[in-house]
């Protein structure tokens, strides 16, 4: 069903266990071996976390060029992960794959773009790898849709997130009520956007990912305010400048000036309303504390504190409130924990992400494939 996630094809056809995903990946490896043997250039290219980050950025790049809404890019990323669960990056042109995912996502989200527009923008981005031939993109569209077995409607965590924040806000009891600030919501959005790099959307329902993003955001903030003394009370008033929009078009551009890991704390100032570097220091702090966070998270969630209980002094009242909400809900907490841990691992890996080497490997792969299969 298209309105109800629980009856959707996403749940019934495109959600898997970890074992199933592993199995599918092994099958792809088998295909790769049969197809290419042990060609050293090709074996240098893997669908690992680096490649995933790289592909994510390709989608973002093309999406931005086309001024697409975030939700379209997210849908495209889901298509990408679905396709690559059943096909190898070594049997297709990944740049064309990215363009095709975006092309189909535009249609399904009812913002169709002309095939010519998509192709020419893709060629602007990657002229060396996108052939100037509409039929190639159209052909790939066919195969992409076929590989997904025509299940195209995707449910995203953004709506769940909004619903959850509404619920948290609606409680009459002060001890249960939690107002999520626009700034926090923005942070959740960013985390959700990043979640598409991983297999999370093949594993868990959207609301799990939404909750994990909110949990990470709150924990993070608790960490920040703890490191700053008692700043948390006056904070809410200062961040009204944060803009939350589906389009993300006005989001900040300050990160390219950010240079090293060590400077994070010194750059951080309590006036968080200025849009520059808003999230970065948080993430750095988060990374430093990731092990303690995830283990205490696990402890806390598994303990399932009763309402009104304020046992764990490690968390701020806001986090406590959220934990109580989680404990009282029917939400699968194991899945939330897994999601949080995967996200933390992602941010950790991102620290070591080396774009140049992934790009080189990808280009070598494509040039080899080009000479082997188009000769």
């Amino acid at each position: 069903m298209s309105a109800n996630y629980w009856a959707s094809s996403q749940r019934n056809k495109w959600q898997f266990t970890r074992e199933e995903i592993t199995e599918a990946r092994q099958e792809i490896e088998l295909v790769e071996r049969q197809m290419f043997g042990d060609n050293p250039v090709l074996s240098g290219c893997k669908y690992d976390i680096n490649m995933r980050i790289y592909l994510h950025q390709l989608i973002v790049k093309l999406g931005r060029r086309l001024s697409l809404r975030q939700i379209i890019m997210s849908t495209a990323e889901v298509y990408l992960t679905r396709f690559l669960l059943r096909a190898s990056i070594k049997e297709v042109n990944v740049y064309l794959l990215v363009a095709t995912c975006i092309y189909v996502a535009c249609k399904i989200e009812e913002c169709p773009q002309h095939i010519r527009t998509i192709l020419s923008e893709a060629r602007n981005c990657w002229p060396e790898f996108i052939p100037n031939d509409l039929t190639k993109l159209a052909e790939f569209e066919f195969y992409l849709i076929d590989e997904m077995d025509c299940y195209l409607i995707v449910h995203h965590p953004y709506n769940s997130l909004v619903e959850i924040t509404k619920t948290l806000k609606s409680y009459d009891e002060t001890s249960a009520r939690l107002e999520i600030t626009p700034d926090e919501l923005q942070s959740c959005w960013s985390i959700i956007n990043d979640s598409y790099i991983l297999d999370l959307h093949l594993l868990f329902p959207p609301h799990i990912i939404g909750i994990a993003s909110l949990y990470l955001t709150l924990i993070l903030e608790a960490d920040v305010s703890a490191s700053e003394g008692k700043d948390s009370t006056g904070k809410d008033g200062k961040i009204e400048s944060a803009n939350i929009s589906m389009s993300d078009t006005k989001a900040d551009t300050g990160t390219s000036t950010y240079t090293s890991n060590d400077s994070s704390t010194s750059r951080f100032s309590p006036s968080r309303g200025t849009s520059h570097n808003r999230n970065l220091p948080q993430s750095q702090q988060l990374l430093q504390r990731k092990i303690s966070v995830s283990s205490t998270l696990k402890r806390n969630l598994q303990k399932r504190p009763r309402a009104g209980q304020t046992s764990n002094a490690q968390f701020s009242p806001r986090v406590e409130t959220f934990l109580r909400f989680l404990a009282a809900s029917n939400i699968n907490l194991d899945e939330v924990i897994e999601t949080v841990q995967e996200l933390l691992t992602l941010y950790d890996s991102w620290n070591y992400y080396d774009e140049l080497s992934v790009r080189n490997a990808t280009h070598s792969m494509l040039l080899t494939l080009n000479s082997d299969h188009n000769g």
Partner: protein
Amino acid sequence: MSSSQRAKPYQSQTSSVQAVAGSQGQSATAVAVGQSHSHSAASQPPSQPPSSRHQYHQQNYPYGTGGSKPTRVASNDFFTIGPYRKRKDQSRVSVVDRYEILGYIAAGTYGKVYKARGKLGSSTDNLYAIKKFKTETKDNEVAHYTGISQSAVREMSLCKELNHKNISKLSGIILERKCIYMVFEFAEHDLLQIIHYHSHPEPKPIPQLTLKSAVYQILQGLSFLHQNWILHRDLKPANIMVTSDGVIKIGDLGLARKFNNPLQGLYAGDKVVVTIWYRAPELLLGARHYTPAIDMWAVGCILAELLSLRPLFKGEETKMDNKKQVPFQENQLLKILEILGTPTLEKWPSLNSYPEYPQLSRFTLFPSNLKAWYHTNGGTNKNCLKLLSQLLEYDPSKRINALDSLKHPWFYENPKPVANIFEGSKFSYPQRKIQKEDIDILGTGKGIYSHRPNYGVNNATKRGYPLAASNDDSFADMSRKRMR
């Protein structure tokens, strides 16, 4: 590795774009490409003679063979999906291997619908309607891939999610040789055909129970669609199927779309929706935003048509002019006013906010005639008239919704709606006509796929029919129709 990349973990879209744009300028790309080329040349398998390998590589190198000044543009035959396509095509089962095509039922702008029997199942009544989407081929010689139409994408994606007894059941989709085949469970009848049967040669009214049950089941299916945030946008008798055991199946979701959180307004996506006779007044008045109420209006028109056996508002469509501006459908609105009377601001407060509101002054004032129309067309039941007037309520915000309409008193009084709309009926309707001369579903008659001579043309030759003679002509016909 740029520092901006390293700094990026937590920041999402914004930073990544910035970083990519920053570090991936032209010069950086050139370096990367240069490196990768030498890398691939250096790491070639030792078994191959280096010189020939290198030559080979250069010939296919997308930057030209000179090496001094790379053009940096992919050639048209640059690698796309070759190995993948080969792997997938090996395991593909053709539509003609799965289904025996019995003939074609209908043709429209979208393509053609065929009647088929499943070859794989064992039961005898495994009949299917296969909707083949027309491919937009410019020349008849080679079928090129073109983008899949928005309508096909909608219908495919929605049908894959929906499962309701009153919605056409999709049994599968086959993508084969640049064509899309949507396989539906076969429905022997549709309301247009049933209405026609009752009006020709002499009018004989549709039995009350059939009529009421049909409307009830349409509303059940529609209520399901609306609960799933889907607007049908093309309800009309021809799109309401009926199975041989009397179950309504709403079909043709080619214009349907989801309306929750639209990124783009409904009007921006499709300027004109719903076949003119069934188009709600708010649409005729140029509404930019509209609601499921437009489908309810169409149900009202269908109910009236089942009663009177004629379209209720049979207006003449004003064709699109060259400027591609949506014309005001004066005649259609006139037909509505003649029966329902002129709408007033008092009864429809938002009336003057519609773009075409000023046009209303062009009409003379009409009184409401619905009751008189109802009685002259043989209507006797009061509750039925009440439902009809609630469905044909001018103000979309006051028009009855699908869920409420299912609780309407008309459905609670005897005879109550039944699961088989033909129950107790003395009528038996003819089977759907099929054109047996064109069963070449793959369109192979022209020798496009000459490398597979037996592909789908066997049956046609066996029966002595010409090979798909009408196929391309009918498509040409259809596109002309669409142009008009």
